[in-house]
C-alpha cells in the first residue's frame, strides 16, 4: 500500500499564447495514499499549478481522453500506476501530431483517417421489424475490434503514421475498418476493400507492432490489418 510520497516529474510545457518554444518543466508533487494512478498525480499537480493542461474524463480507461507519452511510451494516464513509473516521470504529448498546448495534441488528422474508412455499418436491405440475427460465433468475430476507445496511442506510436499521417490510415482506423469487414451484417466488403487498395492506406503497415505494444485495451491492430491483407489477396485470386 502506497503512503504519502513525493514524486518528481519532467513535463513538456508549451502555451502558444506566451511561450516562444516548448520546454521541459521539472516539477514535483506530494501524493496522498489514495493517489494510485498517474492521472491522480496530474490532478494533484493541477491543483498546485492550474496552468498545466491535459485532457481527461472518465478516469477508468473507456473514454480515451488522457493518452500521452509516459516515460517514452504511449499510454493512458488513468490506467498507469504512478508508483510503477521510473522518476522523474517524463510526460510528453502523443508523438507525431501537432501540439496545441502542453500535452494536448490536435487530433484532426487521426479522426480524419478514422472517418475515411466509413466507420458505420452499411446494409442496404430494408430494415426488418426486429433485430437482424447474428450467431454468437459470428458476433465473437467482433471481439477485440469494437472495444477501441480512439485514444490514438497506437497510431501515434506507429512510424508509418508519423511519416504519412495524411495517406496511411493508421492502426486505429484499420482496426475499425476490419471491425466492419468482420461484421456479418455489413454488406460493403468490396467497397471497403477498394477504399483501402492503395500503396499507402493499408500497405504502409510494416508490422512493426508498436500499436499492439501500447494499446491500453490490449487490442491487436496488427492482427486485424493482417486479416484485411488476407482478404485483399483472396479476392485478387
Amino acid at each position, binding site marked *: 500500500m502506497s503512503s504519502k510520497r513525493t514524486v518528481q516529474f519532467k513535463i513538456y510545457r508549451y*502555451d*502558444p*499564447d*506566451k511561450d516562444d518554444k516548448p520546454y521541459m518543466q521539472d516539477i514535483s508533487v506530494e501524493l496522498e495514499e*489514495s493517489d*494510485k494512478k498517474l492521472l491522480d498525480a496530474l490532478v494533484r499537480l*493541477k*491543483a498546485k*499549478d*492550474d*496552468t498545466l*493542461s*491535459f*485532457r*481527461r*474524463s*472518465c*478516469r*477508468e*480507461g*473507456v*473514454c*480515451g*481522453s488522457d493518452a500521452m507519452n509516459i516515460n517514452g511510451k504511449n499510454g493512458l494516464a488513468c*490506467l498507469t500506476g504512478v508508483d510503477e513509473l521510473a522518476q522523474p516521470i517524463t510526460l510528453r504529448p502523443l508523438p507525431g501530431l501537432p501540439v*496545441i*498546448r*502542453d500535452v*494536448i495534441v490536435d*487530433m484532426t488528422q487521426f*479522426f480524419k483517417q478514422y*472517418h475515411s474508412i*466509413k*466507420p*458505420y*455499418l452499411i*446494409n442496404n436491405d430494408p*430494415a426488418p*421489424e*426486429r*433485430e*437482424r*440475427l*447474428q*450467431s*454468437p460465433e*459470428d*458476433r465473437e468475430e*467482433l471481439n477485440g475490434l*469494437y*472495444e477501441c*476507445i*480512439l485514444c490514438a496511442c497506437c497510431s501515434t506510436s506507429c512510424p508509418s503514421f508519423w511519416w504519412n499521417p495524411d495517406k496511411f490510415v493508421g492502426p486505429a482506423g484499420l482496426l475499425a475498418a476490419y471491425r*466492419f469487414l468482420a*461484421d456479418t*451484417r*455489413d454488406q460493403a466488403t468490396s467497397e471497403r476493400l477498394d477504399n483501402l487498395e492503395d500503396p499507402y492506406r493499408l500497405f504502409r503497415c510494416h508490422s512493426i507492432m508498436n500499436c499492439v505494444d501500447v494499446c491500453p485495451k490490449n487490442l491487436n491492430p496488427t492482427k486485424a490489418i493482417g486479416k484485411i491483407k488476407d482478404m485483399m489477396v483472396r479476392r485478387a485470386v
Partner: protein
Amino acid sequence: MKVAKHTFDAVIVGAGGAGLRAALQLSEAGMKTAVLTKVFPTRSHTVAAQGGVAASLGNSTEDNWHWHMYDTVKGSDWLGDQDAIEFMVKKANEVVVELEHYGMPFDRTDNGKIYQRPFGGHSQNYGQTPVSRSCAAADRTGHAMLHALYQRNVRANTQFFVEWMAMDLIRDADGDVLGVTAMEMETGEVSIFHAKATIFATGGAGRIYYSSTNAFINTGDGVGMAARAGIPLEDMEFWQFHPTGVAGAGVLITEGVRGEGGILRNASGERFMERYAPNLKDLASRDVVSRAMTTEINEGRGCGSAKDHVLLDITHLSPETINKRLPGIREISIQFAGVDPIKAPIPVVPTCHYQMGGIPTNYKGQVVVPKDGQPNVPVAGFYAAGECACASVHGANRLGTNSLLDLLVFGKAAGETVVEDFRSGQLTLKPLPENAADVSLARIARLESQTNGEDVHEVRLEMQRTMQKHAGVFRFADIMKEGVTKIMQVAERAKRTQIKDKSKVWNTARTEALELDNLIEVAKATMVSAEARKESRGAHVRDDAPDTAEHPNGRDDENWLKHTLWFSEGNRLDYKPVTLQPMSADVEPIALAKRTY
C-alpha cells in the same frame, strides 16, 4: 471581445447518447444542425455505461411492456410521471432494435437474437420473479452504444463543434430560447449560436459529490445554464447512489455483475440482501440495496480493517462466464481494486451515480415550466433529453438500464418534436436580444480580473465534501439544515473564484471555473430541495420519516406526492402534481402501494 455569430436551424448541446440520438433525427431530416460538445463525442459519459439497456424484447424470458411499466413506476416510488413512463417502455423495443440496425454489437443468444440479462428491480408478472430485460454488449453496453450512435452520425453528416463549451442560455424578453453562447476551447473565443430550436443533452452533475462514479466532465452544465436563465429544476433531491462503486476509487461495477449471479456479502460472509429483500435479494432496486449496504456498514458488519465496505462475490461463477460476460469488470477490478474477481471478491461501497431530477420536460422532450397557473407550459424553442432532463420517468429512484433507454427514447422524441415543429413552421428565428453574449463575456472578464479570490479546486472540494456529508444515502433533518447554510456559503465563495492561467489557448483552469458555476447551481438545488421534502421516498430517505403503517416506507403521499421545482433566483421552491394517469386511456394507472422486493 468580438463575438462571432453562427445561425442554425437547431443547436444541440452535448454529444452523449441523448444528444447523438437527437442529432440523428435532425440530420436525417435535413435540418441545419450544430452539435456542441466539450469533449469528442465518444468521450461523453454514456461510454461508461456497462450493464445494458432495458427493453421487453422477451428474447430469453417472457416479457411485455406492462411489466416494465409496473417495475419503473414502482422503482420510482410513484414519483415518476406515468404518461412519460408508458411512452418510454412502449418505445423501448423500437429504439433498441434501431441501434442493432445501426450496427451496435449486442451479445447474442444461441438463436441469434439480442442477449438479455436480469437487472435490479426488473421483474416478470408485477414483481414476482427476475426477468432478463437488459440488452447487453458484454459489460460495455454504453461504449458500444455511444460508438454506434456516433458512427451513424458520421454517416448522416452531422456537424459537430468538438471541444466547444456551451456557457449560457440565450432567452429574449418573452422567455423564449434563442440559442446559446459557447467558447471554443482551443482559442478561448466566445460565439453566439443563434437557432430556432435548442436541445440540451448535457448529462448529469454527479461531480457535486466527493465520491462519484461519474466522469470529470459530469458538471451539470446544461442544468446550471438553465437554472441561471430562470428555468426551475425538478426533483433535484433525488440522487442515485449505486450500490457497487469500487471502494476508495469510486469506479463503477455494473449491476449486471449481480444480474449474472454476483452476491453481496458482509464481514461474516452472509448474503445479507436476503434479509432486506427476500424475493429479489441482490437484484432489488438500487436505493434498497444501497441502504442495506450502508446499514450493514453502520452496524459494524462492514469488511476490511476499517469495516467500511462490503464484498461483491462472483468467485462461484465460472472463469468463462466472467471473461465472456464481464470482461470489463475484471479489468476494472484488477486496475482499481487490485483484485481479480475470478479469485477474490471485489470491495464495494454505495457511490453517487445518477441524477434523477433535472430540467423539467414532458414526454415530447419540450422543456416545461409553470406559467399563468398551469404547471407544464412549454418554453418556446427549448428542449432537453437524457440525464440533464426530468421527464420524469425515474421519479425518486431509477432502475438500472432505464438510463440508456431514457436517452434513446427521449433523445429521439426531442428530435422528432423539433423536426415536427420545424416543418410545421412553428419554429421561427426570433431576433437576438441586444448584447446576447454579455453575461458570458462578463463571466470571462471577471475570471480575467479577479484578485484575492478563491481557489477553484478548494471551493469545488468544499462543495463535494458538503454534499457527501449533508445529502448522502441516509438523511437527517438537522444535518440537512446545516448543509443548506454551508452550501450557500460555498456558493458565495464560488462567485469569487480566481485562476492563475490567463492563456486563451485550451485554458482548462478557466473551463473548470466555468464548470464550477454549473455544479454550484446543482448543489444548491439538491440541498435545498432535500431539506424541504419532509418524507422518505426512493433515494431520499430521512431518519425522521421511518417506515410505519400510516406511511409505508416513510412515504407521505397525502402531502408529498408532488414534484419539487427549485428556482435559482431567490432560492425559491415550488411544487407541481405528479402525473398519475398514463398516456393512453386504456392503460390502467399503477396504484400506490408499499414497496417491497
